[in-house]
């Protein structure tokens, strides 16, 4: 399956994007300098004319996002009865969508935090929009539990605050843990994202032509001037935030898996859930990064900065996390037999061959059969078209994974007399599809208004950054570096 390395491959050896020393695709195309990368990235934001395709995409996404407005309005008027949730399927689309969206967000934190700690320099090109993806995915995710509580205007009751009712949260419930995990995750992600953008906002302030842009970017840049003492503190804070986000991202999906694993429900009550949920989250998140990165690099001509190396590396991460997910599926099947529990055994039989068995086989096809066979091929890993297709396949699969976990355990639980089924209604679908539009609208606004690729971090990856002792004359050093 795996093709030969390009060093020995006569077809690809002349590709200028391949570094002859390593045989890997270059992280940044050769020939760039500090000014050219700055102009390339800042130019996307600081142009007076918005591309017509951006407006087209924006209006299309905004039209879909109207689904959220309609779905939420009707929900507020009528109550959660308009959804398909009922007994025994008391957790339906709301929880599935919540877990799916927040899982997508996790890849952003993984890229920005874990890969920073592992000194994976290639992450610099994709880290900003992956973080933006995290925040927008958390916005979509957070909406669902809030709406599911029935009276969203009383959502603040979830938080501990002194009140005249003398009522406090109950901290032995995983649902209370969720509130803390997700709110912390959202806050830290936004802070990390913003702190990362401050020096780039400084660049935009200094390069902007229009007075409004100068003023607004000047405000958000906080007066950043690139002082070395500032940079050292800044780097220290970034590293600390990365170190804090790493256990945070693992803990968030672990906590979400506890929503299931703590319940004494066949198919949920297992110890494999936390690692398997985290791996699945990263798997779907990287798929979403590919869904966003591939059209963006094409549309904004960023192939020099988001290179095939990035796509290759992301596909490799998907291969690893996908394999962990496959192991999780295997362990679930094994444990349902090995536990010798009648209910566990029935749950797995019902999951595979019951009335909703098609959903299980669909997720095996889309999460394992298609990606884990093809991603071994280097040729496919560097093919943007194939990865774009695959990213959709995996995200469909990951949605069905959560569907299978939530629905199949619930609708046929211990007592056959209480068996039922689950059917999502129109209002479930319109809200879910609406969040795709909402997410896309937020992402397009981000791509138009903020630097999508961190300029200061890209500069650090250029060969000109090398400091030589004694301070050689400018032209010679620049020439050598180029």
């Amino acid at each position, binding site marked *: 399956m795996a093709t030969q390395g390009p060093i020995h491959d006569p077809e690809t050896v002349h590709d200028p994007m391949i570094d002859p020393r390593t045989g890997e695709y270059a992280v940044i195309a050769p020939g760039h300098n500090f000014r050219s990368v*700055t102009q390339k990235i800042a130019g996307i934001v600081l142009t007076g004319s918005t591309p017509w395709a951006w407006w087209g995409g924006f209006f299309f996404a905004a039209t879909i996002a109207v689904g959220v407005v309609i779905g939420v309005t009707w929900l507020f008027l009528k109550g959660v009865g308009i959804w398909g949730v009922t007994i025994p399927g008391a957790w339906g689309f709301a929880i599935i969508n919540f877990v799916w969206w927040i899982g997508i967000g996790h890849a952003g934190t993984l890229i920005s935090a874990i890969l920073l700690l592992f000194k994976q320099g290639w992450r610099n090109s994709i880290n900003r929009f992956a973080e933006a993806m995290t925040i927008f995915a958390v916005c979509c995710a957070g909406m669902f539990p809030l709406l599911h509580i029935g009276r969203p205007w009383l959502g603040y009751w979830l938080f501990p605050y002194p009140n005249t009712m003398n009522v*406090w949260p*109950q*901290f032995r419930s995983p649902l209370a843990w969720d509130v803390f995990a997700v709110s912390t995750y959202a806050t830290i992600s936004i802070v990390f994202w913003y702190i990362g953008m401050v020096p780039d906002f400084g660049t935009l302030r200094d390069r902007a032509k229009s007075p409004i842009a100068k003023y607004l970017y000047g405000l958000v840049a906080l007066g950043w001037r690139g002082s070395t003492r500032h*940079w*050292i503190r800044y780097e220290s804070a970034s590293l600390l935030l990365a170190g804090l986000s790493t256990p945070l991202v693992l803990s968030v999906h672990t906590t979400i898996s506890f929503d299931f694993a703590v319940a004494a429900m066949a198919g949920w009550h297992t110890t494999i859930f936390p690692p398997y949920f985290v791996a699945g989250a990263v798997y779907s998140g990287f798929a979403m990064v590919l869904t966003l990165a591939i059209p963006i690099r094409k549309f904004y001509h960023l192939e020099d900065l988001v290179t095939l190396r990035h796509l290759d590396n992301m596909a490799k991460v998907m291969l690893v996390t996908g394999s962990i997910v496959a192991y999780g599926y295997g362990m679930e099947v094994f444990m349902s037999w090995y536990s010798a529990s009648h209910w566990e055994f029935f749950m797995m039989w019902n999951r595979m061959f019951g009335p909703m068995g098609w959903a299980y086989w669909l997720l095996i096809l889309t999460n394992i059969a298609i990606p884990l066979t093809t991603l071994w091929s280097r040729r496919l890993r560097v093919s943007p078209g194939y990865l774009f297709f695959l990213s959709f396949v995996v995200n469909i699969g990951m949605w069905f994974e959560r569907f299978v976990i939530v629905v199949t355990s619930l609708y046929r639980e211990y007592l056959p007399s209480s068996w039922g089924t689950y059917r999502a209604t129109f209002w479930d679908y319109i809200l879910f599809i609406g969040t795709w539009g909402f997410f896309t609208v937020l992402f397009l606004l981000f791509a138009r208004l903020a630097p999508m690729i961190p300029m200061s971090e890209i500069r650090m990856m250029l060969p000109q*950054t090398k400091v030589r002792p004694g*301070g050689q004359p400018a032209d010679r*050093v620049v020439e050598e570096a180029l």
Partner: protein
Amino acid sequence: MPVREGIYGLLAEFNTPSELVHATEMAHRAGYRRMECYTPYPVEEAAEALRFHKTRVPLICLIGGIMGLITGYGMEVWINVWGYPLNIRAMPLFSWPAFVIPGYEWTILFSGLSAAFGMIALNGLPQLYHPLFNAPNFRDGATTDKFFLCLEAHDPRFSIAETRVFLEQFNPVSVVEVDH
């Protein structure tokens, strides 16, 4: 408070980080202390040349984290043991393992916010006005591709004529006076 009259300092512009680091090192050896480098990305060698090694950001982060842990865990214990005791499926009121996750999350929340806002506060930001923005070449380069060394006027070694001559020997692109 630094003096507000006269000039703020002399600003030398370089094309490469190597020249900047060399000039900074030499300025330090020549006895200049009130100086600062401005670069479009972090140049650690410049911080070495400035002898700026320690930041208090990690300490602030640690204090924030400890506060978060005590606040979060303490709040849970108080609420579930004394403030609003509830018997939930006969679990003990002080169910310490169940309290770990929110306490852990608040540890991260407080330490993360402390690191971020502590860094901003130690840097004296937001500071929308700074004399350096008056320099004609600063804003085109400092956040894009140029490397600046500013020797500040309130350094005891500073004198406009001598310092200018001192900076000129490193072949900067330009040396300009920065007004307040």
